């Protein structure tokens, strides 16, 4: 672990921000004000943050339908995101994209993606650009256990390896794709072994543990940033909420989520680890918690009262020129 105090505080803040963002959305969803699909990332924060804390704005990530966590970890503006999810004119995508299409190219964020498996090929392309530029930047894609069965993802594994581009594949096995268990849909079960079949080194991580993910990502980056071609991080984790908001999760055993929340929560684990090691005192973390809570509240209140787009906006942003 090579993280100084500031880095630790920042990682914690980011994980907490994701958590509060999602918990708040979960509550707000019940008001009926939020339109469309919302897939919450709560529970998986250690993965997004453990990965993205290694990256700068010049590194690229390609996300999924469950993208809020990746966006926040990559530095997207939380206020702009909240407004986007509320479909507001000054949302991060002017209300045109919504939860499933949040993107911020200036932050190296190539977009959430409502097509499962859409991201990894796109990240291969960003990695081609990074390789050509030769400045040591990388591209990262996130994929779930379900997405790992999509042909596009498997093509991307092969192509990244063939082209030896600086690309990290992050796999987040949260046990479910929609209402179906990975125990059923993921043949071979060990996704890491599948990836190794393409000649790509895999670094396994405990997706509940920030430090485990951070270390796996470090090792993967050592390969990718040094001309060794792609590498993968394989993290097992869980999601706290349903597949989308409204999912009763009747495919999960009673108490499953509660048990994870109690025993494996990434924030609780992080807090215990850094306080017990005497690196940071609880008060500093409490302060962050309070701060984040306020920030999310501000963002939510602002989003609710922000102006919607106007009908004329439908017609803009299709082409640069036509």
């Amino acid at each position, binding site marked *: 672990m090579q993280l100084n105090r500031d880095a630790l505080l920042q990682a914690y803040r980011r994980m907490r921000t994701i958590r509060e963002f999602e918990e708040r959305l979960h509550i707000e969803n019940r008001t009926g004000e939020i*339109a*469309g*699909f919302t897939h919450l990332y709560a529970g998986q924060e250690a993965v997004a943050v453990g990965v993205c804390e290694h990256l700068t704005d010049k590194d690229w990530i390609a996300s999924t339908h469950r993208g809020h966590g990746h966006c926040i970890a990559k530095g997207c503006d939380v206020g702009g995101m909240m407004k986007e999810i509320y*479909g*507001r004119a000054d949302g991060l*995508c002017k*209300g*045109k*994209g*919504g939860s*499933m*299409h949040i993107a911020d190219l200036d932050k190296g964020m190539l977009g959430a*993606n*409502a*097509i*499962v*498996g859409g991201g990894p090929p796109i990240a291969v392309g960003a990695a081609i650009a990074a390789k050509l530029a030769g400045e040591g930047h990388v591209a990262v894609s996130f994929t779930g256990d*379900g*997405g790992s*069965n*999509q*042909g*596009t993802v498997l093509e991307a594994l092969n192509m990244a390896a063939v082209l030896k581009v600086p690309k990290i594949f992050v796999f987040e096995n949260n046990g*479910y*794709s*929609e*209402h*179906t*268990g*990975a*125990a*059923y*849909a*993921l*043949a071979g079960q060990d996704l890491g072994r599948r990836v190794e079949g393409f000649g790509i080194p895999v670094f396994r991580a405990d997706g509940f543990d920030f430090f485990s993910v951070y270390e796996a990502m470090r090792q993967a980056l050592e390969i990718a940033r040094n001309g060794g071609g792609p590498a993968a991080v394989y993290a097992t984790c869980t999601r706290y909420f349903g597949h989308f908001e409204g999912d009763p999760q*009747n*495919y*999960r*055993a*009673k108490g*499953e989520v509660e048990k994870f929340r109690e025993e494996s929560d990434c924030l609780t684990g992080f807090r215990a680890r850094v306080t017990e090691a005497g690196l940071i005192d609880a008060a500093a973390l409490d302060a962050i918690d309070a701060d984040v809570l306020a920030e999310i509240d501000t963002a939510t209140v602002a989003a609710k009262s922000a102006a*919607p*787009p*106007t*009908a004329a*906006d*439908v*017609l803009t942003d*299709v082409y640069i020129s036509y």
Partner: protein
Amino acid sequence: MPVITLREALNEALHLEMARDPRVIVLGEDVSGGAGGTSGQRDAAGGIFGVTKGLIHKFGDGRVIDTPISESCIIGAANGAALAGLRPVAELMFADFVGVAMDQIFNQAAKFRYMFGGKARTPLVIRMSFGAGMNCAAQHSQTIYPFMTAVPGLKVVVPSNPYDAKGLLLTAIRDDDPVVFFEHKALYSRKGEVPDGDYMIPFGEAALVREGEHATIVALGRMVPFAEKALDKLNAEGITCDLIDPRTTSPLDEETILESVSNTGRLIVVDESPPRCSVASDIAAIVAQKGFRDLKAPIEIVTAPHTPVPFARELERAYVPGPAQIEAAVRKVLADG
């Protein structure tokens, strides 16, 4: 007659036909749901829109098959199962996902019979939800049926109400050619009278939803109830129109459309798709060729704009053609000569 939703009507058709014909199988993502889950509960989904609810308990997981997220292979497997003698009903969840399954639809299923010199039989139904109106944004809201209508070898069904949906789905499953079946997600909860038993609605026969004299409106899917709304308003002023719901875009009932235009002399085509190479332009072109002498005014086309489908409520409302635009189009063709 029982009044049920379009969703329930489709579900009834599936139950009926799976019970009647052991060759019918259903496959797709979460068509039952719960496989590999920790609760042990199957039918945890019954399809994301609930259309396949209950099938697994009656017909088992040999015939109601939950698949991984692998749309090319879902449709490919349906193709192979059809060639091998089954009658698969594959679910694509969202029509927009054709992008990752298109080859198996348009190069394989659609072409087997022709490429193989008439030997293949591909009795396959591909069901997919389509359309805007639920704020699902650009990748979960498209109409897609224009792509399918363009493809020789496919049949294309776009029901607008529960009665048609059930009868057309029964016809689709019994049809020996590949059928792409489009279900408007904003119509799943539309209610209507639906007989309990078995009945079929033939392909290529349009429904004359309303009769009138001043113009012909051709509308599809969700545009049908929208056109009815527009007509309710116009009727009050004494303006009446034929309202034609083609129900299948391939085969298309050209006759009914042309005959109506020969009576009214005016045509409005309403399609939720963007305008270019749409079913609206297709029908307009057919009438411009074959019904030209009957036309008294320019054809009017009411479609979505040439843009992706936006997310925000205000934007999506502006995007989807609605009763107001249909009404305006009728007024325009009437004013126009």
